[in-house]
């Protein structure tokens, strides 16, 4: 049982949402602004970083020791995933999510399952399916908001954050 590393986590979130993190390097060669297609795991230098990566324990590579990486959970990390504008923006602006909604053609179980497949790589269990369906029927929350909240809930589950 291991928590996903910072870079892997942010790359997964970027992939799910179809968004990118913008990294910049103080050293202008080879890139001052890291190309958007590059994944966070490919960042070449410990000094090319972001608040998210530092918060989730990516080492600054001062010592080059594996033990410098700190995967222990902190309250700040939980707060960030639960309620930061950074993550909320990723979900709300997600192009991939738009694609999934279109492909489901209005069939809710299909939408829910395609979200499950994209995030947790499995189908929803019957209990989960019914819980999600119930949520879509909540008063005062429209379909797009409910979809966003389903994505939000899944990326906050232990199953997503931990490798098991």
């Amino acid at each position: 049982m291991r928590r996903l590393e910072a870079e892997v986590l942010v790359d997964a979130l970027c992939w799910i949402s179809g968004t990118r993190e913008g990294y910049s390097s103080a050293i202008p060669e080879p890139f001052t602004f890291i190309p958007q297609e590059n994944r966070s795991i490919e960042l070449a230098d410990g000094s090319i970083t972001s608040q998210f990566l530092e918060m989730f324990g990516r080492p600054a590579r001062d010592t080059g020791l594996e033990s410098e990486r700190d995967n222990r959970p902190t309250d700040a990390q939980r707060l960030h995933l639960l309620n930061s504008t950074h993550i909320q923006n990723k979900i709300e602006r997600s192009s991939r999510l738009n694609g999934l909604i279109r492909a489901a053609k209005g069939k809710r179980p299909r939408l829910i399952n395609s979200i499950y497949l994209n995030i947790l790589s499995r189908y929803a269990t019957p209990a989960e399916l019914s819980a999600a369906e119930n949520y879509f029927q909540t008063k005062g929350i429209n379909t797009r908001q409910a979809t966003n909240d389903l994505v939000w809930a899944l990326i906050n589950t232990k199953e997503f954050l931990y490798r098991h």
Partner: protein
Amino acid sequence: MSRQQITDCMTRREALKRGLFGAAGLTLANPLGVRARSAPPRTRAKSVIQIWMWGGPTHLDTFDPKPEAGDDYCGPFKKPIATNADGVRICELLPLLAKQADKYSIIRSMTHGNNSHETASYIVQTGREPGRLVYPSVGAVVSRFKGYDHGYKGLVPPYIVLTQPQGRFSEAGFLGQRYKPFATGGDPNRTPFVVEGIVAQGISDDRQRKRRELLHNLDSLGKAMPNNPHFERLDRSEENAYGMMFGDARKLFDLSEEDGETRDRYGRNTFGQSCLMARRLVEHGVPYVTINYKGWDTHKQHFETMRRKLPEMDAGMATLLQDLADRGLLDSTIIWWSGEFGRGPKIQWNPPWNGGRSHHGKCFCALVAGGGFKGGRVVGASDEKGMEVADRPVYPTDLIASMYELLGIDPEGPMPNPRGLDVKVMPASDKGGGRLKEIV
């Protein structure tokens, strides 16, 4: 030892509960070895507000004016004003601070000799020269010694940055991410002040609660493994997070609770409102608040920028000092104003600078107030042009160690850390004039 003997001995947990470790001067890092130290010095300071002048503020055009050095050095600000401290004069663009000079002391002989932003920021905020280890900055050390490990029970984390963090050379160093600051993001001058993670725009409380319920309903793995320690930790973090979101932490960051007249006096700009926010946080008991005040790296357009920014700084700082004094908080709150270095006394009139100032780490200014520091004084002096230290050099180590003493942190004590390194809180200092005994 027999099982009976083991259970008869007092467990570490019990010893902690009885506070024995603390009273005898033992630390968790070394429970058996350390000889009990003498009682810690009388501490008055409980909190620090650090006003970090990002980019390096000019020392000539703020607290160390040199009109006698000529136009090439003092530029257009030729008439420094007297303050309500005898014999102390500061730049004419700071009239409100001139009336508060009895509360702060100016150090005119700060020095470290480094002119690079990151290195100098590191040196000023850690008191150490760069080396193999990345040491923690003052905020992280205060968070370590006065935060959660020492019974801090505030609603918000003990080390807060308003509003953008500086990054790793000015943060927790080898202490690790637990002692990193909580950067609020957002802008306290806007309504609402969107504090990252605590205030979310566009999501109602009702929706927050409902989606939290959804999260619990979908937590299949968590339900399948109920006693896993990782997951228990995650659940506790979730409780704490929602406590912050729905509890009084949100009210703490809500500046509309202050009346408009107060907000006007601080200044309706990001810096002014950050000062007000810092006062609220310190009132609540937060041990360390950093206000990262950007825009002081004036290689170009220096004097225009100073005309714009100095009045803003003046209003914010002067109101903060007065407000803290009025509320009886100045005695227990250290205010530390400094940047990573000063700016070149000789103005660069030639292109491309056209009237700018370069970096100057050989001699610059810092300000300290409150928390046990005496006000109305000047420590050290620069030469007639402000280029070099003329008297009583003060190295960052000395200034930081003085602050630690006032906070009740032993500068010669061990620095507990998760990497098992054997380091002290501050290095021994053989340069300069030593700690700031003149103003303590």
